[in-house]
């Protein structure tokens, strides 16, 4: 069925000058389960997009290097080419039609047909479906995976685990499938469904199909894969036989960075007073659901919240600001508060820098001065003047405040009348900081403060946050996908996994521990594994 290896040779990709993949080499043998692991933004999806010839790759100038199958350049320019070359993918979100039966879903657009009087007149598109042979094919595909569900069941109402199998069945039913990519297939499955899936993957591999298995769950990778390739920041880090590597080593390779942001080791004074306590916070933020988080922050502290994308770390700050449906007991400065009311939260002195700077943080088509003053004006009634019974905006005060912020925060702009949308990412973020500072908050929630900002400006933003904590005694909760960033300024870091707090780490804990905790291990397990690997806490 399968001969020839799939090879990525020196593959690189740039998006508008920004390199996201740098000379990646990887090969997948027939019948092998090859795990691919890396943090968010490590380049896994870009690599897979290249393999599938996705339009996003070719519309942005293609890629460098080569993808070879069986030693020949595969020349995949679009997803159809990829299909022809025998490459299939099982999607993370199910792409199934609920109202169709399993058979219909599996055979969609590849139906077997027989001719009918209609088709003789009007052409091939009107041939009748050959349900019998379709059902037979579907049955065969389902049997390969040992799935005993009836092929004429409707997809609607199936447990998610079964839907996943239908997706897989669709891929393996394609004739000549040689390589199959699984993108985080276990993310939505229960434990037993996961077991079942892993078995099925092994069966597929035994039939000679090469498997690329993308996951962030280290234990699965260790149990399932033959080899593992680790990517970090768009670069190939290592490819190892799985039996020769431990979870701790994988975690270290995945997280560890040659270039780290320096941490100032001088001890900071933090009072013992708890400014915010959160008990059993649940937030229904699509894609970032929080399922019961408890923590507290002391006055003047910088608390980091880390974790992989989709695990719920972003939901915490959004929930505290009432941006999504939220329940939980929150006490701020000793008083209980209802966090679902955004206005009251802002009034009490909690400000928020959203991870969606352009969507939530700014009025892009409005000038800088209005952006900075807006919250303080609407929430606290600053920058207003009374004329008779009417209140109006005090343009002079707004301008003066903006000028001061521009100077204090070093916002690079032509003038304060410039539209916020015209600024660079770093300067937009500073405008957001200015907007929060105009509220004079006691607690600042910062989400992904350096997302989409170049490396020089990153440092400026982080220094700014640190200065706020040190000089003005502001309490900061910073949520970030970048561990290096969290570890450079935070006093403590909470790792969020699957909507819950996996544990609390010190910024000086080792890369392995961070990596393993983000991958779903408890702190004790992670610490133990790190110790066994001989890593231990490094300083």
């Amino acid at each position, binding site marked *: 069925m399968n001969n020839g290896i799939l090879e990525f040779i020196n593959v690189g990709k740039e998006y508008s000058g920004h390199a996201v993949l740098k000379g990646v080499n990887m090969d997948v043998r027939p019948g092998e389960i090859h795990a691919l692991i890396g943090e968010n933004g490590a380049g896994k999806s870009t690599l897979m997009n290249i393999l599938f010839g996705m339009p996003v790759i070719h519309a942005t100038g293609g890629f460098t290097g080569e993808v070879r199958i069986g030693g020949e350049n595969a020349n995949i320019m679009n997803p159809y080419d990829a299909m022809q070359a025998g490459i299939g993918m099982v999607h993370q979100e199910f792409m199934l039609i609920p109202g169709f039966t399993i058979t219909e879903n599996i055979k969609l657009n590849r139906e077997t047909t027989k001719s009918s009087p209609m088709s003789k007149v009007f052409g091939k598109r009107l041939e009748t479906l050959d349900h019998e042979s379709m059902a037979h094919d579907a049955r065969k595909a389902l049997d390969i995976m040992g799935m005993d569900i009836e092929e004429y069941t409707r997809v609607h109402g199936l447990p998610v685990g079964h839907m996943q199998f239908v997706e897989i069945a669709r891929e393996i039913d394609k004739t000549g499938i040689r390589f199959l990519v699984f993108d985080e297939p276990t993310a939505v499955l229960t434990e037993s469904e996961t077991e079942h899936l892993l078995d099925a993957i092994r069966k597929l591999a035994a039939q000679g199909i090469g498997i690329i298995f993308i996951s962030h769950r280290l234990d699965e990778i260790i149990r399932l894969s033959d080899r593992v390739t680790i990517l970090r920041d768009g670069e190939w880090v290592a490819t190892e036989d799985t039996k020769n590597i431990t979870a701790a080593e994988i975690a270290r390779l995945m997280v560890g960075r040659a270039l780290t942001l320096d941490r100032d080791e001088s001890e900071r004074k933090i009072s013992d007073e708890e400014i915010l306590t959160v008990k059993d916070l649940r937030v229904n933020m699509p894609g970032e659901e929080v399922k019961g988080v408890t923590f507290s922050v002391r006055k003047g502290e910088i608390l980091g919240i880390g974790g992989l994308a989709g695990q719920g770390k972003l939901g915490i700050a959004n929930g505290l600001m009432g941006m999504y449906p939220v329940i939980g007991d929150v006490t701020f400065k000793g008083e209980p508060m209802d966090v679902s009311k955004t206005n009251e939260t802002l009034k009490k002195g909690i400000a928020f820098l959203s991870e969606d700077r352009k969507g939530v943080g700014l009025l892009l088509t409005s000038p800088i001065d209005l952006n900075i003053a807006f919250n303080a004006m*609407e929430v606290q*009634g600053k920058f207003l003047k009374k004329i008779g019974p009417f209140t109006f905006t005090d343009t002079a005060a707004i301008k003066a405040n903006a000028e001061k912020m521009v100077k204090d925060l070093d916002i690079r702009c032509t003038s304060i009348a410039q539209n916020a949308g015209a600024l660079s990412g770093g300067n937009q973020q500073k405008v957001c900081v200015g907007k929060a500072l105009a509220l004079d908050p006691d607690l600042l929630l910062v989400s992904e403060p350096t997302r989409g900002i170049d490396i020089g400006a990153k440092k400026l933003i982080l220094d700014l946050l640190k200065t706020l904590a040190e000089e003005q005694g502001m309490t900061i909760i910073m949520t970030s996908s970048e561990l290096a960033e969290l570890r450079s300024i935070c006093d403590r870091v909470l790792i969020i996994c699957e909507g819950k707090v996996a544990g609390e780490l010190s910024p000086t804990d080792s890369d392995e521990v961070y990596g393993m905790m983000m991958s779903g291990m408890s702190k004790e397990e992670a610490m133990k594994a790190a110790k066994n690997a001989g890593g231990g806490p490094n300083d």
Partner: protein
Amino acid sequence: MTKSIGNAINRIGIPTFAVGLLLLVLLITAGVQGQSIPTLITDILNRVGMNGLLVLAMVPAIKSGTGPNFALPVGIEGGLMALMICMQFDFSGWFLIFSSLALCIVLCTILGWLYGKLMNAVKGAEMTIATYSGFSIVAFFNIFWLAIPFSNRKMGWMLGNGLRETIQFKNFGASRIISDLLKVEIAGVGIPFGMMLVFALFCFLVWFFFQSKTGMAIYAGGQNPRFAEASGLNIDRNRVIANIISTILAGIGIIIYSQGYGYAQLYNGPLNMAFPAVAAVLVGGATASKASIPNVLIGVCLFQGLMTTAMPVMNQLFTGTDLSDIMRIIIQNGVILYALTKVKSGGDR
């Protein structure tokens, strides 16, 4: 060179540029045909005054994020209702105007509040629902005008019950009462200063309102609802306020329009009044998500200028045809169509 012209056109906006150019061509043609330019300008100024407020009513609605107020007939019917009630009591002259304005504000506040609630219930489909709300309320009032037991002989049919289709202001001593106020003739051009002052006053009030805290909040909610939400603003409440203001402006607008026209037009009169107003503000450079007072001023001058000039010019060019009205329909609906295609792309010109 061509690039800088292209840039300039983009800045002005394609509809504004095209309609401006067309108006210029028509004015020149009118001059060549030997038509009286001062008379034309007098007409244009008069019609700008009459239509100004109806166009101004678009601004609060657009700024609040509900899009152009296609449900202008809601406010118009409110204004007409106020007018009819005051006429029933046989008020006349300035008293009729002021009492109907006062009553109009009350009625339109109620109608605007209901309409605003409706807009909040149908987020994402505001413009379609607004258009049909406008049509529906006209149908409702058609029954209402017939059924209402008003007894003033100046308003009824010769036979039977109900109100006439058009009711003359002359009978109440209020025909063109604002339009002719402070009217000064300079070089053959009649300048209706009174009318222009009224229009300017309302423009100023709307501008002033949007400098207030509430005005800012409405604007932010329209520009970026999620930003407003993160600022703890009650977006739904603000949208209702904006639509009440828009509805009131429409109501006042129809009273000013009717006195200038000399007749109050009931029944299907208000049916299609939203479209010229929407077209005018869009011609003035507004988008479905952004509008300002200058957009209103430029738009109403260009659009009404075009309507006024096109008729005599076309009638002379193509005698015996109704081409000017056909052109009005093409331009009016073309501009709306163009603007609506721009809605989804964000319209941040």
